[in-house]
């Protein structure tokens, strides 16, 4: 930019303006495309807005319903907490997996295998009803030895704790794979350069490797957050009322299924839009220094 300014004010501009400029070909195709895409979108919006099946009046009535808002709050709360738990577990497990230590690798493998492999529903029901299986959480010598300490499990495991355990452990397993993929994508030379400077292993990880891995980590993590936002609905199995459940409660009373699903969909779209914006800025932050400002094409 400053260079461009310079051209206009200083010496080279005369010589430069003699050089033929290369212009982009007129993109008729693109204009046709724009018109087409615009047309199709307008048509869809028209159809959707005018279609009586969507019952927009009902949608409007429930969009800001107190129950729905409470559901939104719970959805957000659960998503945020679960993602934080998942992220922390994921980092630890990914680092274990790449540590080179056979025991840690084994543990990481086993963790991912088990928690990625079992349905969250089963895990939720399991945690929620730990009581039935192990009547108390006990600390003591196993295989029949004496017990030092016990809490009745039904007391210990609340709905929220169960949801957190079930969803958090599950999410941790998924995040571990995503973070591992990101770490794999960082050139080994970077690790070596960092070591050569005298960084400790954790410094190498936090300062050099992870920030570069973020480029490959952020978009799939965005996926996970968006997925979790919607997946928290499974927590209603253990009596946690998030967005989806709050609309279910309404439509199972009023039978206005479609408009209430639209209420939920609108809320999710809204939350996802906010998330996408956040994701965009995070990506931008981590692509500092990578962008070739003048690149064209793939």
């Amino acid at each position, binding site marked *: 930019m*400053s*260079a461009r300014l310079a051209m206009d004010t200083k010496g080279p501009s005369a010589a430069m303006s*003699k*050089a033929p400029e290369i212009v982009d*070909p007129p993109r008729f195709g693109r204009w046709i495309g724009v018109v087409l895409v615009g047309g199709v979108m307008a048509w869809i919006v028209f159809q959707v807005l005018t279609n009586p099946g969507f019952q927009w009046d009902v949608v409007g009535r429930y969009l800001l319903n107190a129950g729905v808002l409470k559901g939104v709050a719970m959805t957000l709360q659960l998503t945020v907490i679960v993602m934080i738990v998942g992220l922390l577990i994921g980092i630890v497990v990914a680092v274990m997996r790449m540590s080179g230590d056979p025991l840690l690798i084994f543990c990481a493998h086993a963790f991912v295998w088990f928690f990625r492999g079992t349905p969250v529903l089963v895990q939720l029901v399991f945690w929620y009803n730990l009581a039935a299986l192990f009547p108390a959480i006990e600390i003591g010598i196993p295989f029949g030895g004496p017990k030092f300490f016990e809490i009745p499990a039904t007391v210990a495991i609340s709905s929220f704790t169960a949801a957190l355990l079930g969803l958090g452990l599950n999410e941790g397993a998924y995040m571990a794979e995503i973070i591992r993929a990101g770490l794999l994508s960082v050139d080994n030379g970077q690790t070596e350069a960092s070591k050569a400077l005298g960084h400790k292993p954790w410094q190498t990880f936090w300062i050099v490797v992870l920030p570069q891995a973020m480029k490959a980590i952020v978009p799939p993590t965005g996926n996970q957050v968006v997925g979790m936002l919607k997946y928290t609905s499974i927590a209603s199995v253990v009596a946690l009322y998030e967005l989806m459940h709050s609309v279910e409660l309404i439509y199972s009373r009023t039978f206005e299924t479609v408009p209430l699903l639209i209420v939920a969909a609108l809320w999710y779209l809204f939350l996802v839009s906010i998330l996408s914006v956040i994701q965009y800025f995070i990506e931008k932050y981590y692509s500092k220094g990578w962008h070739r400002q003048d690149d064209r094409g793939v």
Partner: protein
Amino acid sequence: MNSIPLNADRASRMTAPNTDEPLVRCENIWKTRGHNLVLKGVDLKADKGEVVCLLGPSGAGKSTLLRCINAIELADRGLVHVDGVPIGCTLRNGTYVRLTESQLSRQRADIGMVFQNFNLFPHMSVLSNIIDAPMRIRGETRAAATERAHELLHKVGLSEKAGSYPRHLSGGQQQRIAIARALAMQPKLMLFDEPTSALDPHLTDEVLDVIKGLAATGMTMIIVTHEIQFARDVADTAAVMSDGVIIEMGPARDVLSRPTDPRTRTFLARSLPDHQQQAV
């Protein structure tokens, strides 16, 4: 291979009829990268079969110029012609219009390039790195491509590394593979960006031989280098670039030994004969 052929044959090439249109003609190239105006009206030409060495201080814009010549980057203004055809654009109704990427790819197939940092494909073995493009783009058979690959590997002294992956090679080995990969496409124009930076003197000589052999077959080459001695041995023409413009260009022998531009003198100071006498 170790005894260095002197510049005998070059003189003869120089006097060959410089028929009409040069093979490469850069006219008034301007290029901004990021916030930097990197090329500020570069003019450069290379005749068919000519070896041009491009010298100049770090950051002068040498790599950028090479990238503009094979349209890896498109100049903001100014035209590059190779073999009479404008690169990266085409004249349509009096204005120069950019080509699409797939049209560009056809132009680039005839222009070989060795990158400063090699850019070998890490997921392919050395052999695949070399034979892939000839097979896919030139439509050669695997057998033919492999045979020439082995020839080239032999020339650069890396026959036994055909099955290795780039990551397992030393710096100099990677650089030689990069040269072999570009040559395998048998382009009519070769652009070398510091092709001997990672090579020891002995290998530099071998690359010198390879380049001379290619020049003898009529291949045109533009070589960015920092090794003045190498430039002296290989180049017909030397061009010195500084701060985005070519400040001096002419027969290599003259430019490199008796530069006229004071900047060139400073730049070459260390390698000029008077200095050498002093240092050795």
